[in-house]
């Protein structure tokens, strides 16, 4: 191994801390109803950029955190770029397929897992579809894709520092180069995110004749999260809000979740440095690995003979525990808040769409080499440029899905 461990930890501690980070991810995403797909569909369905702004903020904060840690020498630059992805046709194509499938099925990789743990049957079906999709990819697409990757057809053959933005911009991985690049990447994302949120809220305020943003509708008694009476001071209200959130009576706000999730990513970046893929990653595991695991007790070992399974998927890695604990965290949050319920859509057509969408998700994430978390969000933390490609492709896929859904 080329990497040198940054902190001296045992493997058990690393696996344990990755599990903890997964738990936090699941818990916070469930409490904050954090959904990448929702953030993108709402641009086209409700013309709201609020959640999309939060996404950009998430990417910006992540890049800022990891970049500054690297620039100040806490983490060596090699640990930031070592696992950088390879850009190529597959990221654009894969993210488009992924975005389309996820918006049809109603869940990106993150929301699919936490919703499945909160009892949404449609997301169980989507998860199953994703497993089948991964198998289809492995048998039908991967041999072709790996050929184009090896031959360098519309693809870069080496990830790592070659796609590390400080290296691309300044031909250097020095602290100064990383420092400057961090701001070049993070600042526009953060400012754009804040601007999108401000613009959306501003428009809401205007369209309702200047009533307070956030409280335009009247809420009947008994609905959760009743706005506190207007006469209470803002200090008291904040205290009440914090109490409600701690007691799980109220979901976390979008921006609070954004900050916690960014910190979670930075936590993993620190813990795993020098040991393993030190970013939040929840893709290769759930689709491929769990399909492989389910078949193991039946005596079918995909890792011995099936393409992709036999060359790209270690038997176990820290992300395995991350995914399992994500589900446990999401289940705990939904159970304790009273939100847990087995929900079956009335329209059975949706289950079929869920399965087909799930298959496309499985194929899309594998073609793109990662999902919205493991590739897009992670790659902003890696100071690479594949995240931008993924974002573009995914937006396209989501747009198409919204148009198709409108006709269904």
């Amino acid at each position, binding site marked *: 191994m080329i990497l040198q461990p940054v902190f001296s930890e045992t*493997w058990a*501690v690393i*696996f344990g801390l990755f599990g903890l980070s997964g738990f936090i991810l699941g818990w916070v995403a469930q409490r904050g109803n954090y959904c990448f797909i929702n953030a993108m569909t709402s641009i086209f369905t409700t013309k709201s950029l609020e959640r999309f702004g939060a996404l950009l903020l998430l990417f910006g904060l992540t890049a800022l955190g990891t970049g500054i840690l690297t620039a100040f020498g806490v983490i060596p630059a090699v640990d930031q770029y070592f696992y950088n992805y390879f850009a190529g046709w597959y990221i654009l194509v894969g993210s488009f397929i992924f975005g389309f499938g996820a918006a049809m099925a109603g869940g990106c990789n993150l929301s699919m897992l936490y919703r499945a743990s909160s009892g949404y049957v449609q997301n169980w079906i989507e998860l199953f579809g994703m497993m089948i999709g991964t198998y289809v990819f492995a048998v039908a697409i991967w041999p072709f894709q790996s050929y184009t990757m090896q031959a360098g057809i519309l693809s870069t053959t080496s990830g790592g520092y070659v796609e590390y933005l400080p290296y691309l911009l300044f031909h250097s991985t020095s602290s100064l180069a990383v420092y400057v690049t961090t701001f070049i990447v993070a600042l526009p994302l953060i400012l754009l995110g804040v601007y999108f949120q401000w613009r959306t809220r501003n428009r809401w305020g205007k369209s309702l004749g200047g009533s307070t943003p956030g409280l335009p509708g009247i809420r009947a008694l008994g609905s959760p999260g009743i706005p506190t009476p207007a006469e209470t001071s803002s200090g008291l209200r904040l205290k009440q809000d914090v109490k409600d959130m701690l007691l799980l009576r109220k979901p976390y706000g979008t921006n609070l979740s954004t900050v916690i999730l960014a910190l979670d990513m930075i936590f993993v970046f620190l813990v795993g440095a020098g040991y393993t893929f030190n970013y939040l990653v929840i893709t290769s595991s759930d689709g491929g690995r769990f399909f492989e695991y389910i078949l193991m007790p039946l005596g079918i070992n995909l890792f011995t003979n099936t393409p992709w*399974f036999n060359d790209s998927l*270690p038997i176990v890695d820290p992300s395995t*525990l991350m995914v399992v604990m994500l589900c446990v965290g999401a289940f705990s949050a939904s159970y304790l808040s009273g939100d*847990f319920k087995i929900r079956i859509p009335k329209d059975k057509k949706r289950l079929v769409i869920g399965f087909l969408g799930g298959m496309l998700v499985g194929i899309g994430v594998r073609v793109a080499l990662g999902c919205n978390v493991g590739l897009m969000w992670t790659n902003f933390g890696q100071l690479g440029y594949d995240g931008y490609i993924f974002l573009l492709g995914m937006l396209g896929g989501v747009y198409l899905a919204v148009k198709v859904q409108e006709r269904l």
Partner: protein
Amino acid sequence: MEEMEKAKTKAKSYPVRKVIAPLILSLFAIVWFQFSKVYLTGADNIALREANFAIYVTPEQLQGYLEATAWTCYIVVYVGLIFFWYGLVRYVESKEVSK
């Protein structure tokens, strides 16, 4: 009086799913650990035998994984059992009240 009525309907509706769900979580944790110990260790040995080092995991890593999984599962099992017990008490209580 009205308060009592309300409390009654609320107590009556303590759902069975809330009692069973934590038990399923605990069982899942046990199954997950046993699966890891038996099948993943077995799979790693097969990978070594076939000299497939792209997917083979070193013994230190696998041991670390099993150790972390064991501890995590202990926690999940106990937390699940606590909630199961709490749910069971609430469920029995609600049955008593409705009688």
